[in-house]
C-alpha cells in the first residue's frame, strides 16, 4: 500500500504521452528497479491515441467503479480490436498505469490511474484471447533483458502467463530470475506464481513439464512454483509435489501445505507414494511439519495415519491435539470427543473388525440373499476403514438381483461421494425398477451438483457417459 504513491509518481514521469502506441515503438522502460524508482513528476503531454486505443483506455478507466461489467463482457469488448491493441496492453502492463484521456469523450479523463488489480486482470484476460505465437513473438527475448529493465520483465511474465503453455516454463524462469541473479524480487515472485498457476490451469501437460524441468529449475524458484501448483488447484500437480518431497527435504513443509489445495490425484499409486513419504512427518518433535503433515495426509485420505493421529491426541501441544482431532473427524466421519481414550477404543475395535470380520461382511454383501446383503451393507457403512473398498465394490451391486439392494447401492455411493461411479449411475437411470432409477437420479444430482431431469440421455451428455451396454 505504501508503495502506491511513489510508484504512481514514477509512472507519471515514465508514460509517453505524445503519441499512440500503435504508431510508435514503446520507449525504453525506466532503468530503476520496480519498487524504488521515484523520479520527479512531469506534466503530461496531450495524448494522441487511435480510436481503438482511446476506447480501450476509457473502458479500463471505468474499472475504478464498483459497479461494472463482468470480466467476460469486458474482454469481449477489448477483443474487438484483436491484435492491434496488444502494444497498448503491453505498455500499460509495463508502466503499471492507465493514462488519462484529456479531451471530453464523456467516459473518462483526468489524471493517470495507477494500474489496479482489476484492471491488470482484465488486460491479461484480453491478452489471453490472442494467439500464443503472436504474443510470444512480440515479447522482448528473455536473454536481452537485464535486471535494469524490471518493468518489462514483469509485464512479459504476465503475458507469458496469459497465453503460455508448459513448454514456456523455461522462458518464464529466465524472466523471473535473470542470469546472475540469486534471489527473486518480491514482484517477480508474485508475478511468476500467478503466471505459472495460470499456465497450469490452462495446459493439462504443464504439471508433467514441471516434473521434467525439476532438475534444471533454479533452486530459488522452487518455493514459488510450489505455491503456483497450489494456486492452480489441479490434482495433476501432485506428481510435481511428490517429486519435490523426494528430492528437496527443505521444501517439505511448503509442499505439504499445498497438498491441501491440490487434492488427491486420480492416480492412486501416486497418492500412496505421497502418503508413505509424508507419514514420517507426523512427529510432534517438529510441530510445524507435523501440523502441515496432519492436513496433507487428511487431504490424501490416509487411514493408515489414524494410529499416529490418536497418539497425537495425547500431545502436550494444544494446537497439535486440535489438528489431530480435526483430522480424525475428517478421516472417519465420526464426531467423537477429543478424548484420546475414546478414539483409541474406537480404533482398536475398528481394527479388530477389519481383521476378523471385514472379508466376511464383503462376502455377505455380494450374496444373493437380500437380507444378508442388506445387513452387510448396513454394517460396512459404519466402518470408515472399509470405505475405500466399499466404494469400489458398490458399483457391482448396481447389478444385484434385488431392486432394493440396487437402490441402496445408489444412495450409498452418493453418501460416499463416489464420483468415479457416475457413469454406472447414469446407466442405472435406465433400470427396469423405477425406485432404482429414482435413487440413481438422486445420487447423480448429489455427486455432480447438476439438476437435470430423470432422463438417461440428458445425463449421458452432461457427464460424457457412453450409452449403456448390454452387460448391465
Amino acid at each position, binding site marked *: *500500500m*505504501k508503495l*502506491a*504513491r511513489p510508484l*504512481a509518481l514514477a509512472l507519471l514521469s515514465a508514460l509517453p504521452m505524445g503519441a499512440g502506441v500503435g504508431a510508435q515503438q514503446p520507449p525504453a522502460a525506466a532503468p530503476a528497479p520496480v519498487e524504488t524508482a521515484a523520479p520527479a513528476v512531469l506534466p503530461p503531454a496531450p495524448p494522441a491515441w487511435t480510436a481503438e486505443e482511446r476506447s480501450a483506455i476509457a473502458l479500463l*478507466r471505468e*474499472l*475504478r*467503479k*464498483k459497479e461494472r461489467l463482468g470480466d467476460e463482457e469486458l474482454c469481449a469488448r477489448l477483443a474487438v480490436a484483436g491484435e492491434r491493441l496488444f502494444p497498448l496492453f503491453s505498455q500499460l502492463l509495463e508502466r503499471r*498505469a492507465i493514462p488519462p484521456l484529456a479531451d471530453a469523450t464523456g467516459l*473518462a*479523463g*483526468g*489524471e*493517470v*490511474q*495507477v*494500474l*489496479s*488489480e*482489476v484492471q491488470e486482470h482484465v488486460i491479461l484476460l484480453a491478452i489471453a484471447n490472442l494467439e500464443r505465437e503472436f504474443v510470444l513473438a512480440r515479447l522482448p527475448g528473455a536473454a536481452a533483458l537485464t535486471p535494469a529493465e524490471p518493468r518489462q520483465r514483469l509485464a512479459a511474465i504476465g503475458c507469458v502467463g496469459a497465453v503460455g503453455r508448459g513448454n514456456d516454463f523455461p522462458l518464464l524462469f529466465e524472466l523471473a530470475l535473470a542470469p546472475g541473479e540469486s534471489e527473486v524480487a518480491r514482484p517477480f515472485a508474485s508475478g511468476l506464481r500467478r503466471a505459472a498457476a495460470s499456465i497450469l490451469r490452462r495446459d493439462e501437460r504443464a504439471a508433467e513439464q514441471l516434473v521434467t524441468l525439476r532438475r534444471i529449475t533454479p533452486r530459488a524458484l522452487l518455493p514459488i512454483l510450489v*505455491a503456483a501448483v*497450489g494456486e492452480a488447484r489441479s490434482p495433476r500437480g501432485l506428481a510435481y509435489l511428490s517429486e519435490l518431497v523426494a528430492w528437496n527435504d527443505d521444501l517439505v*513443509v*511448503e509442499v505439504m*501445505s*499445498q497438498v*491441501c*489445495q491440490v487434492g488427491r490425484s486420480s492416480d492412486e499409486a501416486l497418492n500412496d507414494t505421497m502418503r508413505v513419504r509424508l507419514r514420517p512427518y507426523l512427529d510432534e518433535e*517438529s*510441530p*510445524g*511439519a507435523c*501440523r*502441515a503433515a496432519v*492436513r496433507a495426509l487428511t487431504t490424501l485420505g490416509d487411514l493408515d495415519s489414524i494410529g499416529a493421529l490418536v497418539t497425537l491426541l495425547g500431545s502436550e501441544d*494444544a*494446537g*497439535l491435539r*486440535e*489438528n489431530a482431532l*480435526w483430522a480424525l473427524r475428517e478421516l472417519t466421519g465420526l*464426531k*467423537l*470427543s*477429543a*478424548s484420546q*481414550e*475414546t478414539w483409541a*477404543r*474406537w480404533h482398536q*475395535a475398528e481394527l479388530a473388525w477389519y481383521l476378523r470380520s471385514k472379508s466376511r461382511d464383503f462376502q455377505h454383501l455380494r450374496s444373493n440373499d437380500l437380507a444378508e446383503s442388506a445387513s452387510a451393507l448396513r454394517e460396512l457403512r459404519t466402518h470408515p476403514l472399509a470405505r475405500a473398498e466399499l466404494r469400489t465394490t458398490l458399483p457391482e451391486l448396481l447389478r444385484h438381483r434385488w431392486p432394493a439392494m440396487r437402490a441402496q447401492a445408489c444412495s450409498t455411493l452418493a453418501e460416499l461421494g463416489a464420483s468415479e461411479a457416475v457413469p454406472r449411475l447414469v446407466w442405472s437411470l435406465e433400470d427396469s425398477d423405477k425406485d432404482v432409477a429414482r435413487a440413481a437420479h438422486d445420487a447423480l444430482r448429489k455427486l455432480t451438483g447438476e439438476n437435470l431431469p430423470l432422463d438417461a440421455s440428458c445425463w449421458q451428455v452432461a457427464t460424457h457417459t457412453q450409452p449403456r451396454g448390454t452387460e448391465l
Partner: protein
Amino acid sequence: MDVRRILGRESGSTLVIVALLMAAVATLSLSFLAVLRSSQQESEGSRENLSALYACEAGLTAAVEQLTRGGTGAIGNKYQPQEYGEQSYYVQATPMSDGRTALVSVGRDDDARMAVEMVVQRRPSGFFRWAAFGDEWVHMDSNSRTDSYESDAGTYLSQQVNGSGSNAHANSEGDVASNGNISMDSNIGVYGDANPGPGGVVTGDLGNISGATTPMPNSVDLPDVIVPSIPNTGNKTVTLNESLSSGSYHFNTLQINNNKTLTVNGPATIVCENMKLKASSNLVVNASSGPVEFFIVNDFVMNSGTTISSTSKSPLDVSFSLLSDNVLDPGVDINFDEDLVDFDSNAVLYGTIFAPSAEVTIDSNFELFGALVARRVDLDSNCRIHYDEVLATVDDGGEATYETLCWRVVTQP
C-alpha cells in the same frame, strides 16, 4: 495258557477305558465350550459396551448442539431416553459457575450401560473473535506477533508474563484467520490458532503457531459498513489541543496536527471522509458515558508516533469502520480519491478496526490492542496485535460455541 479265558477276563477293562476316555473327551469338550461361550459373551459384552459408549458420545454431541442453540443441554431422562438406532441415551445437564455446564450422558445398548461426563464452557460469540482476520488473505512478515490479553484484568504489560525477550506474550487467544490463505514468514509468533478458509492453507513458518492450523468449517461473511447519515460540516484541523463533546459529527477531513491532542467525549458517532493523524498526535476518547464510533469513507492515515486510545485503555471504547476500498482504486482518480489506509510505525491504537473493502498494511512496530478485520491483512515485521479477549464476550447476537474442558467415564447415575 488259555488265551480265550484271558481275553474274556480283559474285555470288561477295555469298556471301562473307553468309557473313561469318552468321559474325559466330553469333559474337555464341555470346558472348551464353556470357554468359548465365555469368550463370546465377553466379546458381546465388549461390543455392547462400545456401542453404549458411542451412544453416550452421540448424546453429548446432541447436548452441545442444543446448548449452542440456547437450550439447557438436557435430553430425555432415565425413563424416557432418546432412541438412537438400536441404542438409546439421555443427558443430564447441570449449570456451573463461569458459564460452564456439566453434561452427563448415559448410553445403553441391551444390557450394557455406559456413562460419560463432560464439562463444557461457553465460548464467546462477539464479532471480533480474532486478533487479525483477512477476508481474502492474511500475511505476516517476519517477527510480527499476535497474542491476547484481557483488558478488564489489568494492563497488557501486567499480563505479559509468558516467554521472554521478543517472545514475551500474555495469553494464547491471539488467533489469526482468513476466508482464504494465511502465509507467514520466518520467526513470526502466533499465540493462538491460525485458521485458513474452508479451502485455504497456512504456509510458511508453522512451527511458531501455538494453536491449531485447521481450516474453518465455513467462510465468515463480513457485513457491509453502513455509514450513518449526518450533515457534513466540512474540514476540521486540530491545531491546538481541544475537545469534542458527545454527539454526532461528519467532517470532510479530520486532521490532527503534529503533537496535538483531540479528546472526544463519548458517546459519539463521527463520520470522516478522510482522517489523518499527523506524527506524534493523539486521539483520546473519554468513554465514561459511552463509546465512540468512527466511520471513515476514504483515507485513514495514522502517522508514526500517534496514539488512539480511551482514557481507560479499553478497546471496547473505540471502533473504526472503514468504507475505504484501496484494492479497486490504488491510485488517484478523478471519480474516486485514493483510499489510503495506512497504519505507520511506532503508532499505538486501542480499539477495533473493521475494513471489509480495504487491504490494511500494519507497519513495523505498530501496536494494536484490540482486533482487526479487513479484506486483506498484511502485518509488517515487528508489529504487534494484542487481541482483547473481552471483545469476544460482547454478545452481538452471534451463535455461541462451547469448549470442552474435561471428559471422563463415570459410574452410572
